[in-house]
């Protein structure tokens, strides 16, 4: 009994001393839920690695949270207009001059020079190195410079494409450190990446050029970062950053409230967790801000165009008319995500909601019914479903099993389609089966719901060009999982790549949107919001809403009372 009293007393005394949110610039502990890999900028593929790398490494340019291309290591972005870039005489290539900041240095004080970019290109081009998207690097054919001006680089591009200067993912490698590894292992399959200093000794001075440098890495656990005194920009205010992996999203909140972490990054809370936690912040006056920002992550339903029912565009249009997406957003997401009308997000310059340019589908059960009637699917009053030639209008609807949000959306939509006489059968699969086989091989009966992550002004080539329909012939690569074929769209996609006039380019992109919304190969649902929970004392934090992490601005973060 005495022990029980002590315990109860302990509870009262300590219950009120939940660790407060961080308010000092001495340390900030950031919680993430996704695994990260070794920090070699050429090899990394995971979102969490990019998140961490953005604190320690910078590129020539990046996309700001305002959606504008801004410089990082470069003095200026070369364009045709500012004469820092020009076409080759045969118009097939572009030659651009990139000037690297005079004070851009690696964390050992050595200058960042053209040779570091050239070295990255050499490594990335090797068949023995497992760079994911090789064209990120090999779009540059050659990098040359004068030894007297090692920071003034001439990039000759393989093709004359309008986005030649969007080199955010072309990251330099410190040649003065990695060259020796490269020389020794370049002829072995994966020899370089296995023996890279990023792998063997990731806290070696000189590997990074960003505001922070790594002081400790434990894969699967945490990364500790301290300011890089050689950073070209403003000195970071926070003296120590710890990025801690909390693999179970269910315990994120407990870790936050107990002070194990001070904030949850955009790679942490699921959307519904963040909404629930925001309510607790208000009701319990907790010292945190829940931040939401609409992103370009596009949640949608692919329609299998090889399905005989879905070949009829009237049926596809009816499916869109039949769903009330505004109501879905209000009911399930507290109005904090944005309804999607097509695959281009409102933060993208290519976006349009002009009914003269695209086809809009406001919720209308009557219009849905009319289109289905026209398509020959007649309502049977006995069971409330539609039939044609004795066959029921029934479609299979698949998504990733265990994703609570998607499963709730499925149930919501299933009910709305049933109200216009369409039977929808839900069949979900684990993500690895769903993405590896089902979507690629179009083994989904009718509809497959998932999301695409892209960037503003991103060519829709991989998801809409007919050459990107996954097939055995192309090794099931490409992401046109609907099997959408439109020669006109293919032509416009080819044109966009080489159209340097931004107005004309936007017009071309919107022409594709016209076909996209007219022919409905995909049902747009909503653009996901990025979410993060930060201490109220944290200033300078902005969620970007695109694939470039918020940590690109970490030098501006500070904790103020």
């Amino acid at each position, binding site marked *: 009994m005495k022990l029980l009293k002590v315990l109860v007393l302990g*509870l009262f005394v300590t219950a009120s001393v*939940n660790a407060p949110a961080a308010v000092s610039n001495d340390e900030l*502990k950031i919680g993430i839920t996704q695994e990260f890999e070794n920090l070699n900028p050429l090899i990394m593929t995971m979102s969490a690695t990019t998140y961490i790398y953005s604190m320690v490494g910078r590129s020539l340019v990046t996309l700001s949270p305002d959606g504008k291309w801004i410089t990082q290591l470069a003095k200026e972005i070369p364009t045709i207009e500012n004469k820092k870039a020009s076409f080759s005489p045969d118009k097939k290539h572009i030659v651009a001059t990139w000037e690297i900041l005079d004070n851009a240095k690696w964390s050992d004080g050595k200058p960042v020079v053209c040779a570091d970019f050239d070295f990255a290109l050499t490594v990335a081009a090797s068949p023995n190195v497992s760079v994911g998207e090789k064209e990120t690097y090999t779009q540059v054919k050659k990098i040359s410079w004068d030894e007297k001006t090692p920071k003034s680089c001439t990039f000759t591009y393989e093709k004359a494409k309008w986005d030649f200067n969007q080199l955010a993912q072309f990251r330099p490698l410190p040649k003065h450190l990695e060259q020796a590894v490269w020389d020794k292992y370049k002829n072995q399959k*994966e020899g370089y990446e296995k023996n890279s200093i990023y792998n063997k000794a990731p806290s070696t001075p000189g590997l990074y050029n960003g505001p922070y440098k790594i002081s400790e890495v434990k*894969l699967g656990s945490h990364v500790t970062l301290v300011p890089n005194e050689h950073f070209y920009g403003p000195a970071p205010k926070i003296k*120590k950053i710890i990025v801690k992996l909390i693999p179970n999203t269910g315990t994120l909140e*407990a870790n936050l409230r*107990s002070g194990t972490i001070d904030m949850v990054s955009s790679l942490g809370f699921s959307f519904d967790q963040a909404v629930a936690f925001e309510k607790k912040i208000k009701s319990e006056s907790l010292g945190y801000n829940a931040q939401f920002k609409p992103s370009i992550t596009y949640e949608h339903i692919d329609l299998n165009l090889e399905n005989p029912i879905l070949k009829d565009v009237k049926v596809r249009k009816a499916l869109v008319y039949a769903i009330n997406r505004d109501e879905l957003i209000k009911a399930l997401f507290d109005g904090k995500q944005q309804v999607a009308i097509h695959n281009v997000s409102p933060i993208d310059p290519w976006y349009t909601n002009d009914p003269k340019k695209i086809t809009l589908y406001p919720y209308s059960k009557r219009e849905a019914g009319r289109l289905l009637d026209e398509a020959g699917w007649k309502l049977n009053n006995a069971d409330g479903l539609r039939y044609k030639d004795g066959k029921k209008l029934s479609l299979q609807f698949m998504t990733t099993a265990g994703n609570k949000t998607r499963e709730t959306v499925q149930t919501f939509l299933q009910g709305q389609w049933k109200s216009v006489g369409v039977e929808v059968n839900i069949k979900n699969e684990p993500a*690895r089966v769903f993405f590896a086989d089902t979507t690629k091989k179009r083994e989904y009966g009718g509809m497959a719901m998932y999301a695409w992550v892209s960037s503003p002004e991103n060519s829709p080539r991989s998801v809409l060009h007919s050459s990107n329909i996954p097939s055995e012939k192309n090794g099931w*690569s490409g992401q046109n999982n609907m099997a959408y074929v439109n020669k006109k769209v293919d032509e416009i996609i080819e044109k966009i790549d080489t159209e340097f006039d931004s107005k004309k380019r936007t017009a071309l992109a919107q022409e594709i949107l016209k076909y996209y919304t007219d022919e409905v190969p995909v049902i747009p649902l909503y653009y996901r919001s990025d979410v993060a929970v930060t201490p109220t004392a944290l200033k300078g934090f902005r969620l970007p809403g695109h694939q470039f992490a918020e940590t690109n601005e970490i030098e501006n973060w500070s904790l103020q009372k």
Partner: protein
Amino acid sequence: MTNFIIRRLIQTVIVIALLSYFCFYLMTLMPGDPVDLMIQSNPRITSEDVARLRNLYGLDQPTYVRYWNWMSGILQGDLGYSRTYRIPVSDIMGPKLVNTFVLSFASLALALIIAIPLGVWSALRAGTKTDYVIGFFAFSGVSMPSFWLGLILIIAFAVWIPWFPAGGTETIGVDHGSWWSIVTDRAYYLVLPTVTLAYISIGRFLRFTRSAMLEAMRNDYIRTARAKGLSRVVVIWQHGFRNALLSLITMVTLSFSGVFSGATITETVFAYQGVGKLVYDSIIANDFNVAMISFMISVSMVLIFNLIADIMYSFADPRISLS
């Protein structure tokens, strides 16, 4: 005895080799590969990229060729390369394996220290209130999901009463002055996951001990021992418990073999840097090399601890011969 051990060790190696091929083959049948995961995270990867990466990783080779390449590496001491973490398997697995062993052995030891005396006590007081209370305690442990218990412990002892950390393996970024400081820091992080794992196992061990003791205490030799005037302690522990020990050895050694893979959920809930979650993730992410090494260790543990159990039987009961 030596012949027996050598014979069993040879059998163990053959079983591991056969099972490793079977398991490797099954893994290749699973949908997807590491390149598919890269495509998911980057829709801009081209078909040329896919073909190049599959060739580089050897994923375009027949299963038997891939297995042979993998086994050749193992025989030369190269455990392979993790496609998820992009570092050698030994680098990622070694420290995590140690952490898991520490957690699993600590929880197993705690469970046995509590379960065996309580099981014996419960058997000696069968049908009494004490027996029922202990039985309730045992069943609550057996029936409680570890993730739920873990969450409750975190909320109670990390959030409400912040005595212990909510998760992790050690305090990050602290320079420990002495080895004792390291040990106490690690122990601090071990408390909640150890209690979670131990509580789940206590019920099983306790009920097993109780029934084995009940059975043993009914035998004629117990009556004879009592008739000889031996003390109660000697009758219970030297005559009763020793005979109950045989079945307990089986139970405990099999539990030892499971320590490697039995803590996955607890490790995940407590963000504990163990190998359980690594194994799970490697299978989900098609990280073949990590998954296969995990498998090899698991199988080896089962076979080796079975061998240890057989040897221990002969010590517990001299009537059992290993020849």
